[in-house]
């Protein structure tokens, strides 16, 4: 993992998301979710290919229920792209790399 992949929690979520100078793609995931594990390496690749343009924020829903509820996440993996602290794109369910890039391309 590079610097562009960070771990988020209920306590520092707003701090990171609101202060981020680049778009931050938050990955709502959990250890027991198979499709989440398939998406994780793709997110690492996307982060590595867009240095300085995108941060990936990992939020383990098991330990961060407040944030999970606040954004009404009811299915994982859910990815939400925040730009200037505002949610702009929401992707529910696992996707291939090309499809994911297509969803967020406009903000990179």
């Amino acid at each position, binding site marked *: 993992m590079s610097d562009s992949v960070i771990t988020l929690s209920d306590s520092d979520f707003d701090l990171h998301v609101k202060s981020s100078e680049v778009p931050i793609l938050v990955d709502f995931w*959990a250890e*027991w*979710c*198979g*499709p*989440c*594990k*398939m*998406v994780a*390496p*793709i997110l690492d*690749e996307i982060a590595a290919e867009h240095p300085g343009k995108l941060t990936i924020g990992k939020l383990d*829903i*098991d330990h961060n229920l407040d944030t999970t509820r606040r954004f*009404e*996440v*009811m*299915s*994982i*993996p*859910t990815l939400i792209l925040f730009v200037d602290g505002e949610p702009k794109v929401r992707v*529910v*369910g*696992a*996707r*291939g*790399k*090309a*499809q994911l*890039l*297509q969803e967020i391309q406009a903000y990179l």
Partner: protein
Amino acid sequence: MGTTDAGRHAQVVVVGSGPAGLTAAIYSARANLRPLVLAGEPSSTSDQPGGQLMLTTEVENFPGFVDGILGPELMQRFEEQAARFGADIVRRRVTRVDLSERPFRLWTSDSAGQEESVPDVSADCLIVATGARSLMLGVPGEDRLLGHGVSTCATCDGFFFRGQEIAVVGGGDSAIEEAVFLTRFASKVTIIHRRKELRASKIMQDRAFANERIDFRWNTVVVEVLGASKLEALRVRDTTSGEESLMELAGLFVAIGHEPNTALFQGQLELAANGYLVTHGGSSTSVDGVFACGDVQDHVYRQAITAAGSGCMAAIDAERWLESSKHRRP
């Protein structure tokens, strides 16, 4: 494994990476054929690398695992075993095939999400193991509320329904397995089934009937999925009286059966009336040099172990076909 370029020729190309495809890969790899496995791309339906087992929990009937094993872990082991013998496993989706001449040509999703303008993979022989995917209900509201109370993955989403009332639609083993699993979270799980008895195996039925949190709604079909921003209720119809009523629920899981992933091969390989690939004499299809295994050609047994067994057959058939001198490349 990565999402890097697949582009190359291989003697054996396997399309699909469930128990059938990866068993075919293990056998082909051990025969020194260096198979290329086009494993598919991530999704939250059964149409993903690893196949249907990626969305299950405990697999209790795969021989050798006395205490059971988690579906995703079992598939991870299949994959590692195939890779150990030299199978090249690539997470790409095949978007088009041309089986009209040899070598067969395949197009895969490239990194920009567009089909390669030229085929990027060619194969002397092809093993089709694309499996089957879960059917959805196809009723109003279902698509719109997918991920907002409607789920295709109990293991992914059960967690969100802690203490809530939910429903599972279906009457087979998958439906019952999901319902039993979901009682870990939900306060009540109603199984909605269009008949008055279950199709599931005896052991699964016994578990369902013994579970206090599981309720049944017989002779009932879902007509509409209702809710503003998330699932709130189902409109259901009693198939005997024709009466419609509302069921208030927070979650809906659909397990009503499968359809084979054969769209890629329509017009090129012989399909049965029900859409499944037709095989004969082991794993041969209607095109010489194309073999099929697993759920894409089996609507009867549909088990991990039968898929794996047929994957082994396809690999052996493919190896013998390659060995026959007329197919050997210089």
